[in-house]
């Protein structure tokens, strides 16, 4: 079990990580999700012990490891760049942690062969890393991390530099490999979809703060605040300001300072938001909860102007303007809609989200 207790990191006056509390249970897969420079890497480095926290303490299985040099910790790490020892063969690369640990030759040979098999590197064992393709290089790095059987494995955007399809395959393999060992896995990524595909737990990061931590799907479905919702939505979540007046949300197409007509639109408040107090709110709706057909009888609709539609095979993304706001609608199947049309878009209000002026999510859960 890895515990962060008020851990913070300040480098030459700049706060990279604000005081953070985090508990990662053994045998779990934990995703750090956030845009570049949100502090993912800084957090990983603190976990590895490569950096010393400015304040707070790090505990591993109860014992305080805050100052412990990285050699004396049982961790493994894989970087976004393909980091291997260029002067060693793939075999030696994978073997190196075991050699240092002083394992016997035949143990090393057995383990290396096993992991190489798992990562489909067996035919490449006597090649040099730099003579391999990107995918193979990264698999070597992963193999070295796995063979060590570390109790804490840190992965910093390990697939970011790989081909889309390759990424997809490895994304499928990794969780299996993770599941096998009882270690704690921490996986940093910028892509919400990747977090969802990996499952496990997710901590969303924003400007050096963990905005929320929990089961991946529930963080995705019930973000604690607008920032989390934004970080954890792809396509980006659609938002608009409104005022709750009793049984209705009242929206102005024209937001404060914005362009667009000042027509009033009223939406019936869905059950799960009934308890929200009257007053100004920010409404949020995921692109796949907007649709061009009624999802159910008498679903409320909005007038929007179409811009572009992007077809991604199984899905289509229809970009529209609501007032002066760029919104995205996610439709299943192929939907190619001409630009500059005025159309109706239906909201599935069962999944409507409402955020207070402080950005916190209001009332019940958007199922």
């Amino acid at each position, binding site marked *: 079990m890895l515990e962060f207790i008020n851990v913070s990191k300040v480098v030459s006056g700049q706060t990279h990580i604000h005081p953070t509390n985090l508990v990662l249970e053994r045998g779990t897969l934990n995703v750090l999700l956030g845009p570049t420079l949100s502090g993912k890497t800084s957090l990983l480095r603190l976990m590895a012990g490569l950096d010393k926290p400015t304040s707070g303490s790090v505990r591993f299985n109860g014992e305080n490891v805050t100052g412990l040099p990285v050699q004396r910790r049982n961790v493994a790490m894989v970087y976004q760049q393909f980091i291997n020892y260029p002067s060693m063969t793939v075999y030696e690369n994978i073997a190196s942690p075991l050699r240092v640990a002083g394992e016997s030759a035949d143990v090393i040979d057995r383990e290396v062969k096993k992991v190489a098999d798992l990562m489909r590197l067996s035919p490449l064992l006597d090649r040099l890393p730099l003579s391999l393709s990107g995918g193979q290089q990264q698999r070597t790095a992963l193999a070295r991390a796995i063979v060590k059987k570390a109790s804490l494995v840190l992965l910093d955007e390990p697939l970011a530099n790989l081909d889309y399809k390759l990424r*997809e395959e490895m994304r499928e393999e990794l969780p299996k490999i993770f599941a096998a060992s009882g270690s704690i896995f921490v996986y940093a990524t910028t892509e919400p979809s990747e977090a969802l595909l990996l*499952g496990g737990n997710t901590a969303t990061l924003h400007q050096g703060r963990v905005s929320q931590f929990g089961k991946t799907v529930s963080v*995705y*479905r019930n973000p604690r605040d607008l920032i989390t919702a934004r970080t954890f939505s792809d396509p980006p979540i659609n938002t608009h300001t409104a005022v709750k007046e009793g049984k209705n949300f009242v929206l102005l197409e024209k937001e404060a300072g914005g362009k667009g007509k000042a027509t009033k639109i009223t939406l019936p408040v869905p059950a799960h938001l009934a308890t929200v107090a009257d007053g100004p709110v920010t409404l949020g709706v995921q692109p796949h909860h907007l649709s061009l057909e009624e999802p159910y009888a008498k679903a409320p609709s909005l007038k929007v102007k179409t811009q572009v539609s992007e077809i991604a095979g199984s899905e289509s993304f229809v970009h529209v303007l609501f007032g002066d706001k760029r919104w995205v609608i996610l439709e299943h*199947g192929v939907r190619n809609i001409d630009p500059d049309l005025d159309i109706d878009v239906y909201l599935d209000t069962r999944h409507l989200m409402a955020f207070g002026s402080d950005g916190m999510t209001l009332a019940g859960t958007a199922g």
Partner: protein
Amino acid sequence: MARINLDHIRHAYGIRPTSPNDYALREVHHEWADGGAYALLGPSGCGKTTLLNIISGIVRPSEGHILFDGKDVTHLPTEERNIAQVFQFPVVYDTMTVYDNLAFPLRNRNVPEDLVATRVKHILEMLELTDRADKKARGLTADQKQKISLGRGLVRSDVNAILFDEPLTVIDPHLKWVLRSQLKQLHRHSKFTMVYVTHDQTEALTFADKVVVMYDGQIVQIGTPAELFEKPKHTFVGYFIGSPGMNVFPVEIAGKKARIGNVSVDIGFAPKISKGQKTELGIRPEFMDITRKGMPMTIRKVEDIGRQKIVRGELAGQAVSIVMKEGSDIPADPHVSFRDEGINIYADSWRVGQED
């Protein structure tokens, strides 16, 4: 703006090619319409970048000709082909300001300053760089630099074609959304011929109205995103496009029926299969439903990825993936049924349609 003809183009790097495997680019013979938006999609090393560089004139093909609007430009150097190209990694002139970077291609062609100003301003706004216009390019972040490279590609109004070589590699997911749709809009307004190289199916499908799928130095299929998704010509296309890729089952064809393991599926037409061909049935996870009747399957695991669920399991003794809508639930003893429109039949990996 121009129509592009690729006339029996082959290319091999280095020495005289002997076997077909020596070619980085096997045989490309196509016409690309004026004002079209094309995407070259394929895994790394499939020859897509080679093809792009042949069009831009950075690489000269070993064999064949390339024509712009019927004019042979095979032997013209890049600068005389009047094209714009955006590279995978940002290329900016560090010592110039952002504004001068964007103005550079125009000034080199002696465009009058006032016209330069209007063009550059337009691009600056589109890329949301207006406030940085007077900053030196050197200080900028990678994605800002890449925006500048994009801008330099888009600023000229007279180009034959604009070529993109994986331009969004260094861009964050959220910004990708904005830039992609802006590119698409820009294409609609400007009607430039655009060629976009990428390994990312989402980028390819969303950007292009014609996607060129390449594999091992060959073009496997050219088609609209819909075609590629619904009627993949080759099992590779089925696998490469869509995530998860298409499920492919070995089958025996008997008239209008296809036999998977010990159950047989009605495929609605009798495909022509010649003797000894390997026959397969391909169906995308999106065209399968888990119901109470149909073929029995075993479920290994269910991935809830938010807006949909991916069911992984086994059907007729082989791995299968099925996509289900958010919130849909899975019956106790699951069976699978195929939707007819999603069924494709393959002989030796190439599609045999109703049409032919």
